[in-house]
């Protein structure tokens, strides 16, 4: 046990002390965040005192668009034809103009209202202008039909929508299903990436030991099984640390959002929790939907999802890492050999990904149930089901059975992999096939 710890701590230290680790763990997320922040910044950037000339030829608005007092967009009514307006635009007296042609028909919307600006509008400005004008138009139209705004609002009231409930009386709301879908998808996809990234890291570590010919030196003091486990634990710890740093970074950077984008922050203030800063920023379009998302997120059992995520992350990683280690031990200098040997390991992972995309839609289908129980696919597929909650997405029995099977699967692959590893790591200069690896694993030697 002490030796596994020694091996693991070496694996951990040598990786964490590398410059590339710092770069990929801290540098990369900051870079990505900065990139997104810049993109969002330019998209949502609003110009203050955006002056819009309104030439209302058909006297539709009676000198004002609405009652809003905004300094961002200022509508001022003038009487001019398009040629004169264009000229004013060119002289930069106004940033844009709105031209409502003579004889504008409210019902048909003909002839079309024209909006012209001197340069392309920022996302936020455009939204604001569009909202204000179309709201004003809508009101005018309703008035023409003799419907007041109040009447319309009561007709539109959300609570007269159909009430979706499940058999146990719980409310089944649409946004929650949508959010579950997203959470399941993201969690499943993360595990998929973890399996690949850290699995190949284990494989490369084993190959390094073999290629640099240190394996036999080490194996004379440590049992091959201990060496393999130590390596898997050490790299697993690196992965865990990397993830924790990323989560801390995401939450930390999110605190920066209000500082960088006061507008976005204002939109988010009414929301109960503030996850996914970037997602929220692009969803500012309609604060109603945003609040729905927040409410949906609040309904997700995050303790369950995060708990399961950690379990399946570790379980899946340990199970696959052993297989990756076995492949690494069988490969010689030529990394090309690894490709063909890896295929049988990558197949179930990719297969799991396919089942997962089905399972987020229909967490209780036979395929989803099978996929979430079968250890080679369960780490990815189960995340999709867990996101829908217990017992909506998955029953307690199935969850426990899946976890137990994963532990068994982990023990199984580790046992098989250890036997391949033991033989492979001391085998030099020979190209190994799956048939031979099978022999090492299941014949006594």
């Amino acid at each position, binding site marked *: 046990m002490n030796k596994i710890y020694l091996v693991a701590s*070496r694996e951990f230290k*040598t990786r964490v002390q590398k410059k590339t680790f710092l770069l990929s763990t801290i540098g990369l997320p900051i870079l990505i965040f900065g990139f997104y922040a810049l993109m969002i910044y330019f998209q949502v950037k609003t110009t203050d005192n955006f002056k819009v000339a309104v030439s209302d030829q058909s006297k539709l608005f009676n000198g004002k668009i609405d009652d809003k007092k905004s300094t961002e967009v200022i509508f001022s009514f003038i009487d001019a034809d398009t040629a004169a307006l264009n000229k004013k635009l060119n002289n930069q007296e106004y940033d844009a103009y709105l031209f409502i042609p003579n004889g504008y028909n409210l019902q048909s919307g003909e002839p079309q209202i024209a909006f012209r600006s001197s340069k392309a509008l920022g996302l936020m400005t455009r939204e604001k202008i569009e909202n204000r004008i179309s709201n004003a138009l809508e009101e005018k139209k309703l008035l023409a039909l003799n419907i007041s705004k109040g009447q319309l609002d009561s007709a539109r009231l959300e609570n007269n929508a159909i009430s979706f409930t499940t058999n146990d009386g719980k409310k089944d709301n649409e946004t929650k299903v949508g959010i579950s879908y997203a959470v399941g998808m993201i969690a499943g996809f993360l595990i998929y990436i973890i399996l690949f990234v850290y699995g190949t890291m284990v494989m490369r570590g084993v190959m390094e030991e073999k290629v*640099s010919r240190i394996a036999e030196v080490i194996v004379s003091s*440590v049992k091959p099984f201990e060496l393999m486990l130590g390596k898997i634990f050490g790299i697993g710890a690196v992965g865990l640390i990397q993830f924790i740093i990323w989560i801390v970074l995401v939450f930390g950077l999110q605190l920066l959002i209000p500082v960088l984008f006061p507008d976005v922050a204002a939109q988010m203030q009414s929301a109960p929790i503030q996850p996914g800063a970037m997602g929220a920023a692009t969803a500012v379009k309609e604060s109603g939907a945003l609040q729905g998302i927040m409410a949906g997120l609040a309904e997700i059992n995050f303790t369950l999802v995060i708990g399961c995520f950690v379990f399946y992350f570790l379980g899946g990683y340990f199970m696959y890492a052993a297989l990756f280690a076995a492949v690494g031990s069988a490969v010689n200098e030529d990394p090309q050999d690894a490709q063909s040997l890896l295929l049988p390991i990558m197949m179930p992972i990719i297969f799991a990904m396919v089942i997962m995309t089905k399972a987020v839609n229909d967490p209780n289908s036979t395929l989803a149930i099978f996929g979430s129980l079968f250890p080679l696919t369960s780490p990815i597929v189960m995340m999709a089901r867990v996101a829908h909650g217990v017992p909506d997405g998955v029953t307690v029995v199935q969850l426990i059975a899946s976890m137990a099977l994963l532990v068994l699967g982990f023990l199984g692959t580790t046992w098989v992999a250890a036997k391949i590893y033991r033989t492979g790591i*001391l085998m030099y200069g020979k190209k190994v096939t799956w048939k031979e690896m099978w022999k090492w694993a299941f014949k006594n*030697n």
Partner: protein
Amino acid sequence: MHNILELKNLQKHYATQKAVDDVSFSIKQGSIFGLLGPNGAGKTTLLRMITGIFYPDSGDLLFDGKPFDPQNDFVHIGYMPEERGLYKKMKIGEQAMYLAQLKGLSKSESLEKIKYWFKKFEMESWWNKKVEDLSKGMSQKLQFVTTVLHEPKLIILDEPFSGLDPLNANLIKDEIYGLAQRGSTIIFSTHRMEQVEEICDHIILMNLGKKILDGTVTDVKQQFKENKFNVQFKGQPTELASPIFTIEHQEKQQLIVKINEGYTSNHVLNYLLQQDVLIERFNEILPSLNDIFIHLVEGSKATTRAFQNN
């Protein structure tokens, strides 16, 4: 001196062949033991069983008088395999610490011993260098240090001098003698026969998984001697034909003779003295281990087997 290691009918099979086939021998504590054999003879497999990396299929292995228990006895063994290496990206000091701790030493013990050996080999300035910055000879020295620094009772060195210049080879050689004097036993596996002759007390020759020769270097040479003598003389012999010996090679003042059955070296000397020459040198030509090796291995299927083994 008691036996540090005893092998009794040790066997190890691979799918297609017997890698080690019924091998028995024993090694005395404090001796320097040579394990010889052509490629593919089963030396590496044998060494891997002695180090606990492989388990024998059958037979007994006694370490220090007790059945070999790799789990506990590994601390008393230092193994420098033929296929050896170090972590390239790791600092030399950390690497030595790691390997020492894997051998069961505590942190402080490791540090103390590494400092001692680094000082001895003038490697102190290397501590923060990486292995990839070392020359082959330098990393070989480091490898040797990491093999012996936990003061093992049994040190196994597979081709320890490959890649070393004569200066460093001598340094290591002296250390090997020193370790043997302090009670460590050394198993030395190589193809370089002149080194074996120089260093080893006792040798074993393996071929095709079997032990084909076992004895001290002197015994083995005696066993394979061909009764050849080298004679150097001054003067002109009157006659050089006698039933006592056959001339193998003749130069102006030198003869190589093979003594015929039923005669001894004294007969030859007597005969030569009567030939009115001044004998300057008269010595027996013992076969070199190299000759014995080639003589024994040649003609067997060793080469084909070595090929299969890869």
